[in-house]
């Protein structure tokens, strides 16, 4: 540890300290790559230090100093990542902002954060900020990475990135001590400084600036890097939004502490190809990305020749049976193992190669529930896909699954050094090393989010399962109780049911009611395909939805769902007793869904009150008229007699006794 102490000045509690150390210990190893002009351009840690230092001293010469907030706006590009580190080295606070935010939102964030300088990618961002310049009074100047189209602009408040670095290099050339003074300042910096300010995406109200302190951020990243054994030989494709905690943590923070290489894609459109070329060893994607990949693979295989299709089908079935066991090192008959080896050669290997997954050691997914089938498909190919649960306020990790202890329906035990507690009303609370220092300029909201003894409220309801893994069931405010006091988490029930491809949307009811009941929307594509294959004629959604054989199929799915729910003590009481298939598709035009396709529960409850009553009063059908808005804006109404079905469920009220408190 002598070298550590020497290079970084005692404790390694900021990322710039790691930069100094990495430039020494991994001097010529790659730190950054960027595909530019069709070639992967690389920078070693030593070169990265040069770039960051020149930029930092340049920014300093233009007046950036300790405590200043500086926005960083753009795609994943080396210069923007260097900006983050350069700002941290000066004790300034980088504030990454979503590049696709509309100008007004961006202006709000920049003004709220009181940014003095904005480092942006290109003309588009310069235009956005210029348009709202008077709303961001503190903004003194902008630095741009890509000069294209900006030649004719007034450069009074604009600087080229290269120009700032030139200024930095000029300072160093004129003053021999400048570089050394900068390094000394980096070594002397305090881990208590705010390392980064991440604005939450703001799905609920205005976005808030989450302040993360340097020492905490470094500690959290070191913990998880050690947990997954990440080191300088790893590599990642940095393609997640720069302003999202996931990108800053998984790519930036872990790269600095572990010393691995970040690869920036050529453009947002070329990510799939770049992924294939880089074949990273560490990968993160939300469930819908994996879903998209599986769909792509499935469609391609549908179009393949008969022989290939048969080969694929055979080996995928084999992988489904033994793949996960082999991945987890569980005992598997040698013959199955040998066949899996052959499959690796013929199918799994080439498939992973095409997806860019050949070298993956650790992959994570998070953000929403992932279907069992989808999850195990990728794991069965030998991809070590795991789940984590986290949020910006935790600087990402709250829970994480360890290698070999992975399940699709839970998110793992507490991450290293994280304390988790479930509050009396079922909310998940945590305390973690990377835990935020508060919301910027919002002491009240910070206080609301914290418990008196210093835990952070996640706003999510969850519980620990029998093997100690946390299960997130719903947003805490949506969780209700059945009439008899049993826990009722609508989203959890809905998600289990929605994993069936025939079901598009589910709305579950049960709060203050004797049992759980559900509205179901069938998936017109999937069920329509089924109808076609089975010679069932239909002319509209409404007609297909009311078909008795469709009801049979859906009843089967509901029964399966109930079995799954019954297997979980906490959820057993929330089995679906009665359900109906809605006579129309829930639609954002009718206000039933948000524009991002999320169910607006309370509005639906109001609008279909009669149907809800019918679910609970024992009737077998109900005539309704529903006002609808057509795509061209005309209003009309749909009349239908909706059938109400009783579902098969397990165990009745027997399991009821255990309640939420556990």
């Amino acid at each position, binding site marked *: 540890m002598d070298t550590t102490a020497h290079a970084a000045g005692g404790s390694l509690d900021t990322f710039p300290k790691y930069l100094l150390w990495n430039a020494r210990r991994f001097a*010529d190893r790659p730190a950054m790559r960027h595909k530019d002009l069709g070639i*992967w*351009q*690389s920078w070693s840690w030593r070169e990265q230090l040069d770039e960051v230092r020149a930029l930092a001293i340049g920014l300093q010469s233009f007046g950036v100093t300790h405590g200043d907030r500086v926005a960083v706006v753009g795609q994943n590009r080396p210069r923007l990542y260097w900006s983050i580190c350069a700002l941290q080295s000066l004790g300034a606070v980088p504030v990454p902002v979503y590049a696709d935010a509309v100008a007004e939102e961006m202006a709000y964030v920049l003004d709220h954060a009181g940014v003095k300088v904005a480092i942006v990618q290109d003309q588009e961002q310069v235009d956005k900020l210029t348009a709202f310049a008077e709303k961001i009074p503190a903004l003194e100047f902008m630095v741009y990475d890509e000069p*294209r189209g900006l030649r004719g602009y007034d450069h009074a408040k604009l600087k080229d990135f290269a120009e700032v670095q030139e200024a930095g290099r000029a300072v160093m050339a004129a003053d021999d001590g400048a570089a050394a003074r900068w390094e000394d300042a980096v070594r002397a910096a305090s881990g208590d400084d705010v390392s980064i300010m991440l604005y939450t995406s703001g799905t609920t109200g205005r976005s808030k600036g989450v302040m993360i302190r340097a020492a905490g951020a470094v500690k959290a990243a070191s913990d998880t890097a050690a947990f997954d054994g990440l080191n300088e030989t790893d590599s990642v494709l940095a393609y997640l939004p720069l302003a999202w905690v996931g990108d800053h943590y998984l790519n930036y923070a872990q790269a600095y502490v572990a010393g691995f290489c970040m690869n920036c894609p050529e453009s947002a*459109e070329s990510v799939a190809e770049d992924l294939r070329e880089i074949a990273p060893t560490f990968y993160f994607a939300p469930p819908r990305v994996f879903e998209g990949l599986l769909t792509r693979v499935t469609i391609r295989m549908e179009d393949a020749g008969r022989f290939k299709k048969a080969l694929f089908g055979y080996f995928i079935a084999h992988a489904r049976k033994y793949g996960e066991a082999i991945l987890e090192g569980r005992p598997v008959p040698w013959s199955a193992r040998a066949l899996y080896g052959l499959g690796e050669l013929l199918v799994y290997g080439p498939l992973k190669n095409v997806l860019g997954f050949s070298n993956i050691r650790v992959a994570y997914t998070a953000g929403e529930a992932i279907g069992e089938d989808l999850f195990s498909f990728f794991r069965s190919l030998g991809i070590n896909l795991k789940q984590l649960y986290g949020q910006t306020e935790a600087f990402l990790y709250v829970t994480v699954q360890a290698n070999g202890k992975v399940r699709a329906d839970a998110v793992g035990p507490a991450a290293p050094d994280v304390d988790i507690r479930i509050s009396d009303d079922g909310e998940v609370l945590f305390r973690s090393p990377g835990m935020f220092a508060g919301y910027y300029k919002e002491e009240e909201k910070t206080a609301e989010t914290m418990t008196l003894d210093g835990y952070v409220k996640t706003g999510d309801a969850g519980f620990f399962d029998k093997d100690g893994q946390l299960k997130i069931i719903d947003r805490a405010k949506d969780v209700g109780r059945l009439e008899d006091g049993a826990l009722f988490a609508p989203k959890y029930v809905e998600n289990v049911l929605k994993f069936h491809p025939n079901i598009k949307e589910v709305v579950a009811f049960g709060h203050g009611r004797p049992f759980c009941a559900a509205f179901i929307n069938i998936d017109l594509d999937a069920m329509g395909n089924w109808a076609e294959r089975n010679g069932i004629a239909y002319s509209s959604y409404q007609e297909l939805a009311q078909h008795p054989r469709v009801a049979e199929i859906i009843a089967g799915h509901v029964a399966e769902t109930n079995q799954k729910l019954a297997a979980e003590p906490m959820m057993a009481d929330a089995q679906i007793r009665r359900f109906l298939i809605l006579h129309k598709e829930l639609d954002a035009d009718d206000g039933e869904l948000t524009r991002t396709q999320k169910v607006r529960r309370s509005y639906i409850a109001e609008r279909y009150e009669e149907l809800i009553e019918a679910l609970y009063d024992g009737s077998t059908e109900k005539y309704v008229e529903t006002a609808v808005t057509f795509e061209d804006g005309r209003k009309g109404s749909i009349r239908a007699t909706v059938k109400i079905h009783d579902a098969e469920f397990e165990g009745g009220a027997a399991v009821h006794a255990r309640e939420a408190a556990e």
Partner: protein
Amino acid sequence: MNAPIMPHPVAGTEFRLEAHQDDIPTGQTLLKVDNVSLSFGGVKAIREVSFDIRKGEIRAIIGPNGAGKTSMLNVINGFYTPQQGTITYRGVPRRAMRSTQAARQGISRTFQNIALFKGMSTLDNIMTGRITLQKRNLFWQALWHGPAQAEEIEHRLAVEHIIDFLEIAHIRKTPVGRLPYGLQKRVELGRALAAEPALLLLDEPMAGMNLEEKEDMSRFILDVNNQFGTTIALIEHDMGVVMDISDRIVVLDYGRKIGDGKPAEIAADQAVIDAYLGVPHHD
């Protein structure tokens, strides 16, 4: 795993299109069309038209269908030989000229109906635009090694700059036949740029595009003009676009020039308004 570090000489180098340098100052006449007439048998496509294109400007040629706009471009790049009149390019007057000569002198163009090699990739299509700039003969190119390879790398770098400039990196290796129309148009522009033209002729660069594609294309045209100083003559039907992006406009109707001036002047010109509204003609 991590490959060894490659040197990265690219960062910081500014890309320019300057294969066809000349000493004509910006704002002076680059090309002059003098009293040109063109007819096909009895059909008079162009009648005694004169105008000029100044260095560094965006010059639009507009007019109703059949006004002779594309014929005019074909005369400029030597595809048609006018029966009467002269074309003076960079101070050298001529009447007849082969289009290969025009290309060698730095005039390149795109076409109303896309004329790309459908089975070839975006990259290869744009590489073909470099053909007039290749110095090594077929022998060296077939041999590939040595000077030809160095030259190939140089051309490839220029093409990569164009790909980057037009934001088509993600389709670099896609056969152009599989691309949507708007992107094909952009690839065609890329190929024309690859010749590093002094004068770029665009024949309806936005025909058949939706609004968003038109906005993109307008931005690229302005950027080419702004960044590389390339002189551009374009034919376009979308008046909004023409008024927004061009410096000067020449209006043709039934082969005759009926207007010439800045966008604001053209918009107020009665003869132009009549031509577009279809006032009867007397032949």
